[in-house]
């Protein structure tokens, strides 16, 4: 008995779907660029492409599509890791307060006056504007992660770790609220825009940071499918089967938090994908086995965020509105049709 046929078929279909979604996101937008032209630009065969199309694809749509693909995969995987680790269907990449930490970092950069510590820190590194926002977010996320990791090593029960993460998140949010309350209206606008989420902000210059971090985070999940499966029965059973539960907890939390933190830093707090993608995949596969669930989640995360990105840029709507408005009803339908496929904690 190897991998059941249904699961292989689902993964294969998702792989094809991802390629299609990627090409569509390059073709669609304010200007329609025919697929043949997209393909020829990607392959650089220089056969009569419209120079304008080349610019649009190379400077706008391609980095945006790569970002969307990786961010969706990252959020899906981080959500899956958290759900399995905490045996909680509602867990998401930000359950440990990572997004709240990132938000606080960004709020410090965006909302406080020019003389703030963060700005000075950023200026010393030669950072300005968007790059400074990204840096603030990374620092905030990293601070949140280290606090929660340090606490989690001392704590026996996973549920306690989850609650501590939530509390940490609320505390960070409280600070952010204080900053928002005292901010100038012009700066508030920047803040609100960051909150919409966007895959369009990652430039080619930032790719060498964004891509490797996400790839490493995804690799952690691929390398630990066996351990994630052992955790399906809870930490006690996993430990009895030979898993080093504490170490796995730290590796998984760190991996998931880096994925969630990096995406938040570069794309803003992208809602919904992290909690929803793993559920969609479980329902489609009819299985909680991470050997197929991990690849399916990577592919599905890429597809959903590429589609959301394409719709959002076509209509100039905030990304977060699209992911939740379109994704939530879709997830409800999937779950209703497939009651058995739901992860039961």
């Amino acid at each position, binding site marked *: 008995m190897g991998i059941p046929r249904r699961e292989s078929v689902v993964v294969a279909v998702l792989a094809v779907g991802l390629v299609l979604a990627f090409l569509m996101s390059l073709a669609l937008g304010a200007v329609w660029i025919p697929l043949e032209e997209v393909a020829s630009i990607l392959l650089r065969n220089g056969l009569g492409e419209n120079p304008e199309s080349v610019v649009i694809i190379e400077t706008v749509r391609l980095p945006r599509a790569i970002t969307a693909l990786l961010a969706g995969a990252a959020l899906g995987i981080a959500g899956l890791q958290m759900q399995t680790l905490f045996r909680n269907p509602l867990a998401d990449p930000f359950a440990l307060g990572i997004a709240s930490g990132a938000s606080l970092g960004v709020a410090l950069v965006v909302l406080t006056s020019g003389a703030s510590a963060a700005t000075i820190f950023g200026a010393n590194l030669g950072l300005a504007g968007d790059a400074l926002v990204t840096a603030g977010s990374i620092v905030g996320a990293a601070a949140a992660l280290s606090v929660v990791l340090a606490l989690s090593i001392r704590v026996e029960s996973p549920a306690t770790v989850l609650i501590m993460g939530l509390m940490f998140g609320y505390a960070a949010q409280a600070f952010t609220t204080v900053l928002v309350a005292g901010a100038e209206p012009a700066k508030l606008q920047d803040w609100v825009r960051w909150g919409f989420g966007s895959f369009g902000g990652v430039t080619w210059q930032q790719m060498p940071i964004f891509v490797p971090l996400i790839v490493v985070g995804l690799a952690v999940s691929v390398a630990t499918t066996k351990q994630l499966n052992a955790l399906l*029965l809870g930490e*006690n059973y996993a430990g009895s*089967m030979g898993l080093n539960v504490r170490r796995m907890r730290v590796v998984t939390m760190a991996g998931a938090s880096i994925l969630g933190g990096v995406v938040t830093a570069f794309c803003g707090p992208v809602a919904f994908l992290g909690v929803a993608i793993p559920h969609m995949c*479980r329902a489609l596969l009819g299985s909680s086995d991470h050997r197929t669930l991990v690849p399916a989640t990577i592919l599905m995360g890429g597809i959903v965020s590429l589609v959301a990105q394409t719709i959002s840029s076509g209509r100039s709507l905030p990304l977060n509105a699209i992911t939740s408005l379109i994704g939530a009803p879709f997830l409800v339908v999937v779950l209703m049709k497939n009651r058995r496929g739901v992860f039961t904690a």
Partner: protein
Amino acid sequence: MTDALRTLELAVGYRGRGSQKVILEGLNLSVKQRELVCLLGSNGTGKSTLLRTLARIQPPIAGSIEITGVDAARLSRSELARRLGIVLTERPMVGALSGYRLVELGRYPHLNWAGRLSANDHDVVKRAIHAVGADHLSMRDSSSLSDGERQRLLIARALAQEPAVLLLDEPTAFLDVPSRVQVLGLLRRLARDENLAIVVSTHDLELALRMADTLWLVLANGKVHTGLPEDIILDGSLAEAFRGEHIRFAPEERAFRLEITPRGRAIVRGSGLYAVLAAAILEREGYEVVADGVCDFEVSISRDSSRWEIAGNGLRHTGENFASLAESVRKKPNGKA
């Protein structure tokens, strides 16, 4: 032959910051292959703590544990997992996982990092499922199973680890009566057929007395008394360990009985199942059933039906079924009209 599991002056309990609470100590226990041990004791006496310590889920306070002749503290996690399997009281629900995949998880300590199962691994899984009589459950979703069915698969999952020792913490709790008997019967068969040393904690005293090769009886003084079930019945320690108000261990019945002051004495004449059941009715109504001697009344039961006749104090009653017998005994205390 070395024991599959042995403890040397083991003390179990909890260690806090600078303080420790010893629950059981001075334990020198051993289990051989093919032996089924039932661990008995009242609630809160430390059965789970002992099992968790034997499984290395929590560290011992003192002493050591040997598994297949090796000090458990020196075994790596996966070496331990290849020698010892557990079934815990928690019965996790996992949605969207077939029975087969659930059992497959037990191969964890035998797999390389990629987690790919070889043909041999699949054979072990299939044999484990077959051994617990769960072939029909392998394609079912594990979240749709009954408690008894899930328990079977969790036992199969532990078997898939190919352990020498199997520890089970109250595997019969929450199960209906037939499933309880089946699970303990299954464990007994597994001990014999799969060459396993099995320790199972349970509250099913009567079942344990019938099925166990050895009892470990947790006493109130923090010691564990071990022996053949019949020897433990004879030495009175069982009655001691489960002493409670108004109950008494009746050795000849291998069961607990309510202790009440009898309303009177009665003799049941007759033999066979009908006579045994008639005596049960009298006992429930508060009469001491004696073989002969002075009594308040005699009940005669026919050999092949529940027809009865009460004779005593010069009175005679007859009836055709047990319901009327019970009513008659209840209505006429001490046989007087």
